[in-house]
């Protein structure tokens, strides 16, 4: 088959401090018509840079230092400005990572789509990306749409002029699993329908296994390995690829994976939580309101010492709100939240110091939660002094270095600024800072979401080690079921602020009972093109919790499910 995209030993360099820093080094790849080619790699691998060159785009300060990019027979970087503009949108179109940022805020979406050219009416395009009430939607502004809707609009914009090649740069990274799945399905359907070739940039090997025909693995701007998807996932050749694949948490892992140098994988079994472990935090019937909207309705849970309890759900399920409330950043409007040392149902500044230091939060984004002008050693030392866990300055400095060593970092890093550390190192500092107060409860709010997969594996293992060593009660917030499967002892599934299912991780994953849990499981993507996906065979359903009759118990290990009933079930016919 003829290749429509052909990248020939492309090199790109970035000019910094009077020197050329190479970001892409002699990369070659071909994409055949109608095929999807994935570029996989961790941050800094140059995958997005390569993808953008297909549209003749380079970041400010970058330039081509060698090679060429041909799309549909034309050398992209040799095109005159006018023809380059026709190529963009006309032949190649791009869907970016964050549609919320990719749409112009001051312009109605209908006009933004119309601007992309092509003869297809805007309303038809919006219909094609399965958006409801397209005529009305076209008159809206981007901020009036949800994240999933915005990404659909970005896709409509990309296919408006009926291009031949679609460049997808992390198209679903900011979306939760269920929305991700539906957007990916939409892209796959449209690619088939319009006969599009696609270049998919992703760090998520599950997405790649699901979407791509061929894969190129990149590392520091060089090609590590290139193969068909099936071959790459079944028999990776390069040790780096093997390590990358082995680092991805799987839905059927019964613990955290430990990955060796050559990519061998061993699953470390979870440590048993002693039956008599004391309860560290107990939440009963918590409700939390934002103005007149109720974010959390009557949620109850206990976390015991040495136990990891995962809160799972898509965005808007109230899981982060609960975490913030426990940390004292938002007062619940109802219910009780108790710690062995006192009442948690009040804001952090009203908690006594002794209680405050017992419950600590690790933020999702370590890069924005650390003061950029303060050394990371200072960031860890400050709470030591504040909570009085270190008597004087020299002791605090010593303890801070010890804490940095405890999170498996070199204490010499203490003098660095956050910007001088990698994402994984910053997140470890975030954990060290939380540990400074000697907490017994640690709240981890999506702490690995922004990290590369191998770094994520390390941070998860660190968290697991720390809770064993320090007997921590850990509330782990995540939307990633595979991650949760590896680390959590128990799972609470939240939907729209309501608990729909809870129980021991093994039981819930082996036999999910609530249709929403099943839907989440079905939407999760495994890094294996031949994976037998979990099939969600439940039709529509409705909540059937009624008064005090809320739960259906399954077994004796605490696995319980909120009552629900199927809609349009055959039973209904007989009943009528």
């Amino acid at each position, binding site marked *: 088959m003829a290749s429509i995209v052909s990248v020939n030993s492309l090199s790109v360099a970035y000019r910094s401090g009077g020197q050329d820093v190479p970001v892409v080094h002699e990369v070659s790849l071909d994409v055949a018509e109608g095929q999807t080619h994935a570029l996989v790699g961790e941050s800094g691998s140059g995958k997005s840079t390569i993808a953008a060159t297909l549209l003749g785009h380079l970041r*400010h300060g970058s330039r081509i230092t060698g090679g060429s990019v041909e799309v549909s027979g034309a050398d992209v970087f040799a095109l005159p400005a006018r023809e380059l503009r*026709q190529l963009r949108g006309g032949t190649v179109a*791009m869907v970016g990572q964050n549609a919320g940022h990719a749409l*112009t*805020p*001051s312009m109605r979406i209908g006009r933004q789509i119309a601007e992309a050219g092509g003869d297809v009416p805007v309303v038809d395009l919006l219909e094609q990306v399965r958006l409801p009430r397209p005529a009305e939607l076209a008159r809206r502004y981007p901020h009036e749409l949800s994240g999933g809707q915005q990404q659909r609009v970005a896709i409509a914009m990309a296919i408006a002029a009926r291009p031949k090649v679609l460049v997808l740069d992390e198209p679903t990274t900011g979306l939760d699993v269920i929305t991700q799945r539906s957007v990916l399905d939409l892209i796959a359907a449209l690619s088939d329908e319009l006969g599009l070739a696609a270049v998919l940039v992703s760090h998520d090997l599950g997405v790649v296994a699901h979407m791509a025909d061929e894969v190129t693995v990149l590392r520091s701007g060089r090609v590590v390995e290139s193969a068909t998807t099936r071959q790459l996932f079944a028999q990776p050749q390069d040790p780096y690829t093997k390590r990358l694949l082995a680092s991805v948490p799987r839905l059927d892992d019964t613990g955290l994976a430990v990955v060796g140098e050559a990519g061998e994988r061993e699953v470390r079994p979870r440590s048993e939580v002693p039956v008599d472990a004391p309860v560290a935090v107990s939440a009963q019937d918590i409700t939390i309101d934002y103005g007149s909207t109720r974010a959390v309705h009557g949620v109850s849970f206990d976390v015991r010492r040495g136990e990891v309890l995962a809160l799972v759900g898509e965005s808007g399920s109230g899981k982060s709100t609960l975490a913030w409330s426990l940390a004292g950043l938002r007062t619940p409007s109802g219910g009780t939240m108790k710690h062995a040392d006192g009442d948690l149902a009040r804001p952090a500044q009203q908690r006594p110091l002794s209680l405050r230091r017992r419950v600590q939060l690790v933020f999702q984004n370590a890069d924005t939660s650390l003061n950029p002008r303060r050394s990371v050693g200072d960031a860890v030392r400050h709470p030591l002094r504040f909570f009085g866990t270190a008597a004087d300055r020299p002791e605090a400095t010593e303890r801070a270095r010890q804490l940095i060593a405890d999170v498996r970092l070199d204490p010499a890093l203490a003098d660095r600024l956050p910007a001088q550390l990698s994402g994984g190192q910053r997140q470890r500092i975030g954990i060290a800072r939380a540990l400074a107060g000697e907490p017994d409860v640690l709240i981890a709010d999506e702490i690995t979401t922004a990290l590369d997969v191998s770094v994520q594996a390390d941070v998860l293992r660190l968290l697991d080690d720390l809770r064993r060593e320090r007997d921590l009660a850990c509330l782990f917030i995540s939307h990633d079921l595979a991650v949760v499967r590896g680390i959590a002892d128990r799972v609470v599934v939240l939907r729209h602020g309501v608990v729909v299912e809870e129980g021991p991780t093994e039981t819930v994953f082996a036999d999910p009972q609530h249709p929403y849990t099943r839907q989440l499981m079905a939407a999760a993507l495994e890094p294996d093109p031949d994976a037998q996906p979990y099939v969600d065979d439940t039709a529509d359903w409705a909540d059937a919790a009624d008064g005090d009759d809320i739960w259906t118990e399954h077994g004796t290990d605490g696995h319980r499910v909120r009552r629900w009933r199927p809609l349009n079930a055959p039973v209904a016919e007989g009943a009528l």
Partner: protein
Amino acid sequence: MLSFITRRIAAAVGTLFLSSILVFLAVQALPGDVATQILGKDATPDAVAALREKLKLDRPAWERYWDWVWGALHGDFGTSLVSGKAVGGEVSMYLGNSALIAVVTVLFAVTGSIVLGILAGLYRDRWPDHVISTVSLVGMSVPEFVVATVLVLCFSVALPWFPAVVLYGPDASVSQLLPAVWLPALALAVVMAAYIVRMARTSVIDVMATEYVTTARLKGLSTWRVVTRHALPSALLPTLHVIALNVAWLVGGVAVVENVFNYPGIGKLMLSSVQNRDLPTIQAIALISAVVYVVCNLAADLATMALNPRLRTRGRTR
């Protein structure tokens, strides 16, 4: 949205009310009152008392404040102590002359500096940016009377294109004043432009680096379209307030420049009223300056709202 506008307007009225009190109190706090000013140092206490009664100065301050505000609302600011004419008419005549400079300055300085700022932002770190940034910085650093003097030297003395000073009184017609407007306007524009250029440049650079501008470029749109449709509406938002502050600053800024050119505007009137201790006129000018400031900022806020759909559509449900 409506509630936002109403709240904003209410705040503007409140600000004006407070500033009218401040202006009135400040003038009250000056040693001596209108009666002593009129009669001079050697007046007998009896004469002063009689004049006070005639001018109703013997009544409590709040009553006089109320009379003043009530009058001001109807365009009556009292009588000038120097000319004996109505302050309202006098001030509006000078103000009209200044407005002529202001309009010319705003038209050229604001449009010019926005265009220059956008150019500097688009050609960031290349020669147009360097030239524009350097020149505007120099303009910002040099005081306006120096700029005005240099302009006179260049365009009145060396090249006799424009008059160096105005020989007409405040009642001159627009056509008489028009030739004299350009140099003062240019002097003000040079000083004012720097702030607007720098603000516009920074926000254009910020906006041009956003993902949505990149997306618009990668849609294959022309640079012109990308800049005018996608970048400018967002880039102008922060610039608007700088423009508003600068336009308001003009009211005070003209004082120096008008004196250099002997231009019969509000700045000149202000200076002479202060020298002559013409209290009603000072009071009127102070109040009018406050009005200009408040109106300019209100206009900037409302324009921001019009340009920002997040504010415009607030309250609309998803």
